[in-house]
């Protein structure tokens, strides 16, 4: 038995070293189709690398925006700046509450925002968080919080990407990297937002089978912990559900339950009920506004901030 355990542990050490070596070699030398579970996401789909670099040079905000792609393509910091609010957008593609918690904990003390606009896309309550975890693992400076996030998401792609990203950071392999500021889906705006590219003529969305939203325990816990963290740091927050296409919105059968769930955690506004934005004029696609829609929506939010808060 003793012999078995010693040999087994020895093999585990050899296997971990061997696995890491082959993984790093594959990351550097194989084309993406040969490294299925290594998604080193640089350049990021949502300018995460640039956004975090940008965040490192930003301090003392009026407004911090958190959320998924509906945050970075739904809240334009320029519109807030025009109203004399210094804002930063930390939204990222498919950012689930697990990643929002991590980002909030990393940046709240640096930003010291007067208010957080937290865009709560209901589908994220049932999102595995893999896509956003890979995005962060690829683009964020390594820290134990990233490791904790990877364990929570528990997906081999996240582990592999994190390992590879650590190696690249350790050997300064990204130092000369500059992310392009213009991509097919939109242009990066200093402050974390993205201006959507002008879209093709609007098409009515395909009919989606109605579904009832489910809640993943882990995502709900991360959401609660983010709220608790904001409260601990005495940061005011507003929970928002930005406008989506009407068909998209009505596809969820339990919107009422979702509203009551989210509103139980603080001040909450569901723009789908408060604003009546015709899809053909203001939507880019099912889940995102076009630039015109963003401006209308952001002005609505600013009006609220002026009317109802001390900002």
């Amino acid at each position, binding site marked *: *038995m003793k*012999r*078995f355990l010693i*040999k*087994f542990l020895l*093999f585990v050490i*050899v*296997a971990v070293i*061997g*696995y890491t070596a*082959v*993984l790093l070699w*594959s990351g550097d030398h194989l084309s993406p*189709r*040969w*490294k*299925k*579970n*290594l998604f080193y996401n640089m350049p990021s789909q949502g300018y995460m690398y640039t956004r975090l670099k940008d965040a490192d040079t930003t301090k003392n905000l009026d407004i911090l925006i958190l959320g998924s792609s509906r945050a970075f393509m739904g809240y334009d910091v320029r519109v807030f700046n025009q109203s004399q609010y210094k804002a930063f957008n930390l939204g990222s593609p498919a950012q689930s509450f697990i990643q929002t918690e991590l980002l909030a904990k990393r940046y709240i003390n640096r930003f010291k925002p007067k208010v957080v606009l937290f865009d709560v896309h209901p589908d994220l309550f*049932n999102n595995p968080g*893999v896509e956003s975890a890979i995005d962060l693992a690829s683009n964020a400076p390594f820290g134990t919080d990233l490791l904790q996030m990877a364990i929570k998401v*528990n*997906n*081999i*792609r996240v*582990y*592999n990407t994190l390992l590879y990203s650590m190696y690249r950071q350790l050997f300064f392999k990204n130092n000369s990297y500059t992310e392009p500021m213009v991509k097919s889906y939109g242009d990066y705006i200093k402050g974390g937002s993205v201006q959507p590219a002008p879209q093709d003529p609007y098409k009515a969305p395909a009919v989606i089978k109605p579904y*009832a*939203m*489910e*809640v*993943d*325990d882990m995502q*709900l816990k991360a959401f609660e912990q983010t709220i608790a963290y904001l409260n601990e740091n005495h940061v005011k927050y507003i929970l928002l559900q930005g406008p989506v296409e009407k068909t998209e919105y009505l596809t969820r059968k*339990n919107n009422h*339950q979702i509203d009551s*769930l989210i509103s139980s955690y603080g001040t909450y506004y569901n723009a789908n009920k408060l604003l009546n934005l015709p899809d053909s004029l203001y939507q880019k696609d099912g889940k995102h506004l076009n630039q015109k829609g963003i401006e209308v929506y952001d002005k609505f939010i600013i009006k609220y901030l002026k009317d109802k808060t001390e900002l």
Partner: protein
Amino acid sequence: MSKFEKNCDISMLFNSFYFLIFFTVVFIIYWFVLNKNYKVQNVFLLICSYFFYGCWSWKFLFLLAFSTYLDYYTGLRIYNSENSRVRKAWLVTSIGINLGFLSIFKYYNFFINSVADGLNFFNYHAHFSSLNFLLPVGISFYTFHGLSYVIDIYYHRTKPTTNPVEYSLFVSFFPLLVAGPIERATHLLPQIEKPRQFNYNKATSGLRQILWGFFKKIVIADNCADFANKIFADYQHYHGMALVMGAVMFSIQIYGDFSGYSDIALGTARLLGFDLIKNFAFPYFSRNVAEFWRRWHISLSSWFRDYVYIPLGGSRVSLGKQVRNTFIIFILSGFWHGANWTFIIWGFLNALFIIPSVIFKTNRKSLNTVAQGKLLPSVKELFQMVFTFTLITFAWIFFRAPTCADALMYIQRIFVSGHEARPHLGVSALNILIPLMFVVEWIGRESNFALENFYIRWPRPVKWSFYTIILFCIGMYMSTGKIDFIYFQF
């Protein structure tokens, strides 16, 4: 929060993190804390097995416990009775209740729907209420464990155990509980009834078997499943080669899935000091369908052979009855897999493929391993293997398709030519990994499992590098979607 449906499943899949934790804890306590007393080890394993099953479905724990008690009790009554009528009555009771549960949970809806369809065909419009039962996981497996035990006692092949813990462990031992192999009391009970000694070679062999099982399941089978599922779900839009590829991919998927599962189960049991029945013996290297069935799901095939085919007269009856018996066991085998005509047709087709060898008395040919002692097969053997694989793959179409009509349409479209987009393999590396699996299996085909003696004499650094590369393949190419083991549904 109660209004929302929560996603919180802790299913104890062999390839889950939960099972890794569970098994590590079991292994440590079993060998380090309880190693002085095998009876305490048995109680511990029984508790763990019930916990394992409870993680799947605690609601059906009572069914497992009842089925266990029933067979334990009837086994004792049969053995202690000298009156043949009483013995038979207890046997019939046990078989009746066991099959009764199986029928209710697995076949009730199939029966009433089939009767209703039959009556509708004759313009009698009947409507029966169907039962909305969940199928208890593993019911087909543990029911057959119990049946073999009772039948063996009835025919004086074994003596009943008087220890309820040992019998319960025989039925519910967690490595085999939810998808087999279907154990025999004559094989497993004696191992439960005596102390187990930790054996280094046995344990390392168990680890190798688990490693290979994981490779087959989560790299090969799950990736093939992505491809096969796409084709079968949308077969109306494909034809020709794409459909052939879909069927071949399903053949590889089901082999990787089930034999991979069995390897993990056998390896896990071996780490605890138990040898389970071998369930697969490289079936795709078979030269005819009869040989395939001696190598595929061996524990089920031999169960039907011993408890149905031989009691019906086996091969010692007239040719007509041999043919009848062959059809009976294959159709029953199909029916065992599920309450759907597709499985019955699948069984029927396999019987049809095997009948020529029954008629020409060639079904006992090819008892040895193909190309025994040689590196490569002869051209004839290669042709035979490809032909057998083609027949088996053809039958798998019925096994995989949701209905017989879908299967027939699928086959019909194979012969329609044309150009259409073929779904991507998804993982380019599959082009290399599938051949790699078959090469390793070919090299190891004379062993109990592919890696048992695979270049066992290589220097340790080379062997460990090889295992590390398999681990790397698992990490880099495993499917990240949730794909259950196919046989869990049976």
